[in-house]
């Protein structure tokens, strides 16, 4: 039964819950209705609302890729009432899914270019499907540099995939933390300084970044210093949302709605927005 009301969720089942960090879990979801499951198509950058029925609903970036036809994944950080309730679910539980919403990373436009992925903490979640797509269609894209940072080693998101990423052709993985632990032998540096140290070249390149506002702010400074133009720097914004349809009038930045006109924006588009956050 396809809901005609865009505020009605699709019933879905939680297949698997995987701990990624102490407060982030990967949720593998499957839409119950086979017709809806078959036609549910989405692109990197888009998001869904996941309902913990009886508690509420929140928006999450989709971290899986539709072309693999391997279910719908979201990475959820436990930070409030709804995410707390979702974290306490067991495989087999019924949740609601609404979507997909929003625009997407125009990966077709990035073909042939070098892709620099710069993500911090849970901000890395919406960037992961870009990496998956680039690696699944490796010949279509240039060099891939992945900078993944977090507060500490245990807060790095998608650790189970690091080896595969690092081993991929023309791919460089840089992990960095704000503070290491006894076992950590990798970089201890803030993400913007890693960007600067790697001397990423803006030549035929796109930089895609997501993370806490302060990380984006300083990363932007470094990228601009390296010569990246604002239309070469892409990010994905978040805002408090209730509908995902541009109807509850809450997630706007000036005249643009993050849920409809975004969440993917280039820095050029952001600098033209009336409201600056």
């Amino acid at each position, binding site marked *: 039964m396809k809901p005609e009301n865009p505020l009605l969720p699709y019933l879905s089942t939680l297949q698997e819950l995987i701990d990624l960090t102490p407060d982030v879990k990967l949720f593998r979801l499957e839409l119950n209705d086979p017709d809806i499951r078959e036609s549910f198509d989405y692109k990197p950058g888009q998001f869904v609302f996941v309902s913990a029925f009886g508690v*509420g609903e929140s928006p999450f970036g989709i971290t899986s890729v539709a072309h693999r036809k391997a279910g719908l994944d979201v990475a959820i950080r436990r930070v409030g*009432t709804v995410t707390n309730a979702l974290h306490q679910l067991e495989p087999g539980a019924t949740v609601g899914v609404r979507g997909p919403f929003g625009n997407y990373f125009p990966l077709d436009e990035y073909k042939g270019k070098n892709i620099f992925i710069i993500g911090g903490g849970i901000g890395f979640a919406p960037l992961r499907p870009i990496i998956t797509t680039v690696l699944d269609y490796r010949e279509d894209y240039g060099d891939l540099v992945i900078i993944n940072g977090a507060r500490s080693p245990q807060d790095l998101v998608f650790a189970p995939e690091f080896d595969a990423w690092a081993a991929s052709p023309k791919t460089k993985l840089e992990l960095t933390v704000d503070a290491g632990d006894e076992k950590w032998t990798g970089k201890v540096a803030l993400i913007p300084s890693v960007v600067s140290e790697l001397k990423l070249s803006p030549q035929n390149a796109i930089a895609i970044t997501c993370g806490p506002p302060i990380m984006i702010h300083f990363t932007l400074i470094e990228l601009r210093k390296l010569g990246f133009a604002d239309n070469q720097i892409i990010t994905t914004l978040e805002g408090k949302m209730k509908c995902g349809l541009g109807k509850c009038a809450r997630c706007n930045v000036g005249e643009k709605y993050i849920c409809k006109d975004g969440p993917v924006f280039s820095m050029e588009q952001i600098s033209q927005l009336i409201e600056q956050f």
Partner: protein
Amino acid sequence: MDFSEEIRSKAKELLESGTVDCIIGYERATDGVVARPLFVYQPSNVDRLIFDQTCAHNLTKYLLNRKDKATAIVVKPCDSRAINLLINESQIQRDKVSIIGVVCPGIVKAGLDNTSGELQDACLTCQQHTPVLYDFLVGEPASEPDVPDAYPDVSGMEDKSAGERRAFWEEQFSRCIRCYACRQVCPGCYCLECFVERLDPMWVGIRIAPGENEVWNTIRAFHLAGRCIDCNECERVCPVNIPLSLLNRKLGKEVEELFNFQAGIDAETPMPFSTFDKEEKLGISE
């Protein structure tokens, strides 16, 4: 009554001397009849200030937005009680506020002009025409009125049967639209997260409907028991004319009878519901 000149000259003096950065007072509203709050930052703007019997607003809530800044504020006696409350509950510092108190003969009914002489109901039982706290006083203090019955509205309600009272309040709260103007205007409502916003546990939801409306209004009244300084702002701002003061005054009357306490008379007397005594009053019938 019109004290506009006195207010303007005091405001000019305080701004020019650098005693304060801002005066919170009143000016004429766009209908040319009633008043509205005015924030004056420059001495050149003091001529906008007025004070007459249309100045209904209690401006003291605004002090909570300027906690660390030196501010002057124009207060009526009821408003001055709110300042005592806020000092008593450690929400503002006395030395940051310059209080311009006004001797008040009463505020006219909503929508009427200064000359009408028809006072709002709340002013008819007022027992304090001179502010309880001030740095500067405008107007001549007169002897306080003798008000034999300070709560005729409450007694009138108490005389009704439980069934009648229930029906009355159900009808009143059914009109509530949960605009929270009552809470926003009240100097006693300053919680950073109001109980109505709590999700876990969810005391009250977001449903604008009878049931939830009753819980919202009655719990707010209970949170103000022993704290409400009876300025009548909640009732004045309510867009659907719910007699909110009646509820708050009922609880105020109870506290006065039980604890011999009225909120806002001074800033030192321990408040009944935030004071723990080893020897508590245990039974109501004591």
